């Protein structure tokens, strides 16, 4: 005995998909010049990066990678792993594909950092930007990555560029989030101190906030790299060359050996990139001089200090936001 009206209401289907489809086609037609320009520029950058990575012999590149690992970690473990892993990739005939993938990851990461870090800085300084950006970032991160690829292929045709662009969208959120978080986590009193001595807002940012948010920002960049690697591999479906394309080919041919070879290449690249960037992110690496802390006065942890220091309650706890905005305005 359902009310026919109610039944009808329950049956209503929002033609959201159709609308999106129409919208996308309209965007493609209207902004064709923009997409062409992006395709041209990004495509060019990727090509040159790829060229730079592929031209030297794999042995030289392996040595370079090992050198970077040595500088980053200042120990022998990672460089040895690097040499073994990349020689293995080369032996599997995957080195050139790995370099193609690396070129895509590199360009996507650079773009994500160029866009994401300033956005994070803005979000840290402006509450409204922060609240606006948050749901957008959630959306970007939770949308299945294939959908980006689909859209990117629509906008940029198949090949390298949709790979880079979908990786850019998919991988950028951590750069924004961890930059914002890092800056917000800087001790408010230290920021106040910079203001109190008359530093300009820019000096406070570059001289105090960014250096102290460095570890968090670098952790964000590490995340960006890992996410873009995963996206760039998926982009093999959309015609982006490299390890992803090899894996896709292996899947379509049901070629287990080739699939495993491509997969191992991705793993090697992933471990290498993660360890190197994580090592760079470790706070204060090699920058602080070693020296025994003085023992003639008892050193205090913050917790101890807080015990006999009742925090300013009420008005003073709610001042942080006002303080910063007041002082920076």
């Amino acid at each position: 005995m359902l009310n026919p009206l109610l039944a009808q209401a329950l049956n209503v289907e929002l033609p959201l998909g159709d609308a999106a489809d129409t919208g996308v086609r309209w965007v493609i037609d209207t902004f064709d010049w923009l997409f062409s320009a992006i395709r041209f520029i990004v495509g060019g950058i990727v090509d040159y990066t790829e060229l730079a990575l592929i031209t030297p012999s794999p042995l030289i590149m392996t040595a370079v990678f090992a050198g970077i690992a040595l500088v980053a970690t200042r120990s022998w473990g990672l460089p040895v792993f690097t040499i073994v892993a990349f020689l293995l990739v080369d032996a599997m005939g995957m080195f050139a594909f790995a370099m193609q993938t690396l070129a895509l990851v590199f360009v996507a990461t650079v773009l994500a950092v160029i866009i994401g870090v300033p956005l994070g800085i803005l979000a840290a300084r402006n509450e409204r930007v922060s609240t606006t950006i948050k749901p957008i970032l959630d959306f970007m991160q939770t949308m299945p990555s294939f959908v980006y690829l689909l859209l990117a292929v629509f906008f940029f045709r198949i090949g390298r560029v949709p790979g880079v662009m979908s990786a850019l969208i998919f991988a950028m959120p951590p750069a924004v989030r961890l930059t914002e978080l890092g800056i917000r986590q800087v001790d408010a009193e230290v920021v106040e101190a910079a203001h109190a001595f008359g530093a300009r807002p820019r000096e406070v940012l570059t001289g105090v906030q960014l250096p102290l948010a460095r570890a968090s920002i670098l952790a964000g960049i590490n995340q960006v790299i890992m996410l873009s690697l995963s996206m760039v591999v998926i982009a093999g479906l959309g015609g982006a060359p490299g390890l992803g394309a090899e894996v896709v080919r292996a899947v379509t041919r049901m070629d287990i050996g080739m699939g495993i070879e491509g997969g191992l290449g991705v793993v090697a690249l992933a471990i290498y990139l993660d360890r190197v960037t994580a090592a760079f992110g470790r706070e204060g690496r090699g920058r602080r001089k070693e020296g025994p802390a003085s023992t003639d006065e008892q050193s205090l942890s913050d917790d101890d200090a807080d015990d006999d220091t009742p925090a300013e309650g009420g008005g003073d706890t709610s001042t942080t936001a006002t303080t910063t905005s007041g002082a920076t305005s």
Partner: protein
Amino acid sequence: MPKLRVRGLTKVFGPHPRRALELMEQGMSRSDILERTGQLLAVAEVDLDIDEGELFVVMGLSGSGKSTVIRMLNRLIEPTAGTVELDGERIDQLSPAELRSMRQRKLSMVFQHFALFPHRTVGENAAYGLKVQGIDEDEARERALHALDTVGLGDRVDAYPHELSGGMQQRVGLARGLATEADILLMDEPFSALDPLIRRDMQDLLAELQAELNRTIVFITHDLNEAMRLGDRICVLKDGRVVQVGTGAEIIDNPANQYVADFVSDVDRSRVLTAVHAMRKPRRTFSPKDSPREVLDWLDEQEFNGVYVLDSEGRVLGVARDDRLAAGLRSGATTIENLLIEDYASAQHDTLLSELAGLAAHHTVPIAVTDETGKLFGVVPRAHLLAALSNEEAEVDA
């Protein structure tokens, strides 16, 4: 003219300060305003006059608004209403650029948790204010080093803050504040994060430096003993309002209300109050030409054992004690001139009660309070001393 002049300084936290201000002008309390409007009246109509070279302490408990007050002086927190004048210049009306320049030249600050830059060396931290001013690197380094020397850390320029103990870190904070040679040094509970022994050292260091440098210092604390030790004058803040301003002794001796009285009740009065606070006029003094009989009769009548004898200028010559007077009478003395003894203790008007306590025990006459020339101001009887120490009105007969 005061160096720093503050009038009607008010801060309301919340999106609608105007409504809270109206209620404040009607004389409503902070809690009522919070209930009625949801706006927090952190600081209400604070007036301060701080003189050049003065160490001015703002004291209050948590939530009294003292941190907010000091931050409104350099506008780390924007005042909701009121004026702040430094040398006649309205800080509250400066543009952002003018404010920065004012902070660079005239206002520096020391923070509760030191607020050192962890990624900079001790030397770079101390030089920060100079660097911001654009002073060239060599000069900045030299001046920073000088400031570090004054706080006893000249040998740690190249260390990083985390390598130093809490007390040493705050010395760096102090050096950073001193290096710019700003007119006003704002100190926000600078020693309260330190353990008691180090705190004591730092207080001594500050007192020493201040004796030498004579800066104008606004010092925030919740510790009354610290306020009493350091402050030339003290402002007691409660619920964002000024309750009393005065020297430590004035506040202890004459608290403005019950709140202040309760607050100061457990302060060590003997280390704040001085002879003046326990002194009374001598009931009577004698001159050396007086006869022993007359003096003895008076002592008998008063049930005293001795009395001060002064010369014509009012200077203390000595004490006439009953046993000596009686002996003098028997041997036929006509004046007390040769019967005087030195059995008394003397103090200046600014001698602390803690020192008087040691003097009071051994003599038959009250302690004499004299000026530099030995002229007698008054006397401190033992009962008065005890009454002053125990916070009772000194109405005791002695």
